[in-house]
């Protein structure tokens, strides 16, 4: 097992190097002088000169890449053209917001999707089954941003029960510690802040959860159906175990494997979906940050976010693979 993990970690190196080359190339492929691209249109000649020196922009490309990589490994992505703040700082500021949104969404997607899939499979061809699968089919075809707008309209504008955007009610006294507001408000034993956080969190996370929820429901259902057809299930039923025990204790456990793969795969979709959901709900996360950066041609920020996003994505994929091996001893980790 140790060897397997070590090997997978080693395999990450070329991929991450490749990703860094793409991020590096971004500035050089963009039209115009790279120094001016990093400094922004309105920068003074002095600033441009100092950047040219810092990144060695008059040297050959491979030297430039190494100089840049050295800075990046130290966590220095340069400064944003728009705000003139350090990109790393801005990313780390926004990162907990994205984490809270994506994890909360994933939680909803797994709980609801898995349960819906199990129920559908145990009552195959019932009205409930058809309804769930019909909803799931719509779910996978849904444009996330449109769903977000519709939820906002229904719950925020027509019924006025939930806020339509933002992170927390600014009138509530609240101190930011970890940046994960649910955890922060629990640490501070701040009830009103917790309620407010959840109220602001619910619409964006439901919107973001829809696609993974639908996929998880579909995969769970088909995986459950396959398990339910197997001999050991028939044996259990024959020896008189109640249907509930058969399904929830024995079948569910065996049906979980493909679901875990799907959860891992969907994490990437969730990150991409976060770009859209955060934009719709003015959620102050990395997704909205990178979208704005592309619109403003803030290249250092785009570079930083790209590296950060793909790093997260690759790590999540790795964790999924390892979990998969841990859970199913039949898979050999070669």
């Amino acid at each position, binding site marked *: 097992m140790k060897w397997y993990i070590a090997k997978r970690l080693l395999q990450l190196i070329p991929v991450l190097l490749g990703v860094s080359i793409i991020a590096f190339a971004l500035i050089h*492929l963009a039209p115009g002088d790279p120094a001016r691209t990093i400094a922004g249109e309105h920068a003074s000649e002095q600033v441009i000169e100092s950047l040219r020196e810092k990144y060695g922009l008059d040297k050959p490309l491979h030297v430039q890449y190494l100089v840049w990589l050295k800075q990046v490994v130290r966590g220095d992505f340069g400064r944003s053209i728009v705000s003139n703040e350090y990109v790393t700082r801005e990313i780390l500021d926004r990162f907990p917001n994205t984490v809270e949104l994506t994890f909360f969404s994933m939680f909803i997607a797994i709980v609801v999707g898995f349960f819906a899939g199990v129920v559908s499979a145990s009552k195959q061809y019932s009205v409930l089954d058809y309804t769930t699968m019909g909803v799931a089919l719509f779910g996978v*075809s849904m444009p996330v941003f449109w769903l977000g707008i519709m939820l906002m309209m229904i719950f925020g504008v027509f019924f006025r029960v939930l806020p339509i955007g933002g992170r927390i009610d600014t009138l509530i006294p609240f101190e930011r510690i970890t940046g994960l507001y649910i955890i922060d408000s629990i640490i501070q034993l701040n009830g009103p802040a917790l309620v407010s956080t959840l109220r602001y969190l619910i619409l964006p996370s439901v919107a973001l959860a829809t696609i993974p929820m639908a996929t998880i429901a579909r995969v769970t259902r088909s995986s459950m159906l396959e398990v339910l057809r197997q001999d050991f299930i028939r044996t259990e039923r024959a020896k008189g175990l109640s249907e509930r025990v058969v399904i929830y204790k024995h079948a569910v456990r065996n049906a979980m494997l493909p679901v875990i793969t799907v959860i891992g795969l969907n994490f990437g979709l969730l990150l991409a*979906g976060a*770009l859209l959901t955060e934009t719709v709900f003015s959620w102050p996360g990395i997704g909205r940050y990178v979208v704005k950066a*592309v*619109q403003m041609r803030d290249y250092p920020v785009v570079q930083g976010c790209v590296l950060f*996003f793909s790093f997260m994505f690759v790590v999540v994929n790795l964790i999924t693979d390892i979990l998969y091996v841990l859970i199913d001893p039949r898979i050999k980790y070669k």
Partner: protein
Amino acid sequence: MMKKRAQRGSNYGFRRLKQNRSAFFGLVILVILVLCAIFADVIAPNSPNPTPPKLELALKPGFWSEEGVDGMPLGTDALGRCVLSRIIYGTRVSLSAGLVAVFIAMVLGIAFGTLAGFFGGGVDSTIMRFVDIMFAFPALLLAIVIVAVIGQGLDKAMVAIGIVYTPQMARIIRSSVLYIKEMEYIEVQNAIGSRRIRVIFRHVIPNSIAPVIVYGTLMLATAILDCAALGFLGLGAQPPTPEWGAMLAKSYSYIVSGAWWAATFPGLAILFSVLGLNLLGDGLRDILDPRLKQ
């Protein structure tokens, strides 16, 4: 003789498609979309971009309300344009954008996938390493990055999405080429001394086309979705192009004042197009490639 058999084959496929109710429903949606795209000028009740703009008609509701304007059944947007007409013209934009993106992915994917699968060795591992790197990005993020480099606009968004989908296509082709390469008829070609290039174009590629059609259809669905997403983010189609995603972006701030229609209907158009293509793609997979049947 050959032609007749081919015809019988496609009839058979169509019959199977008709039996599969959800796939047939998908096909019907696709046909409606294509008709809307081709005959937009005839079907649409109004111009998608009337000049001069009729600002006095801004944000009027549709047939459900008494305040509605005659001839604008789904209401108007913030610039007084007919929502229905813009959706119909939008079919043209979204469908062609999706098709171009998928076509780019297919051409590049077939080229790289065939090279990797057929020649193997160093060519294969180089191409596949590159594919791995591109898979390290969430798809939409990669598309956005490409747009950041080549610039914003509908044409650029199509290219970006095409490039993003290429690795997926290349992987599919590669695995199918690997399988076909071992078939006896390829061995025969090698034995009678056919030139490699001929073997590739006459035998390998035509025989690996079935999964391309299946995944091409499913890919068209996500391409339309991603194109709309880029349009929504302001990185794809630019105003005044009647593109569904861009229409949504321009009108969703008005839902607060109660004008829900301008943002709702373009989204429904996206939803149903994607749904239709997904249903059709799933159905085609069952028919053309029974091995993949879930």
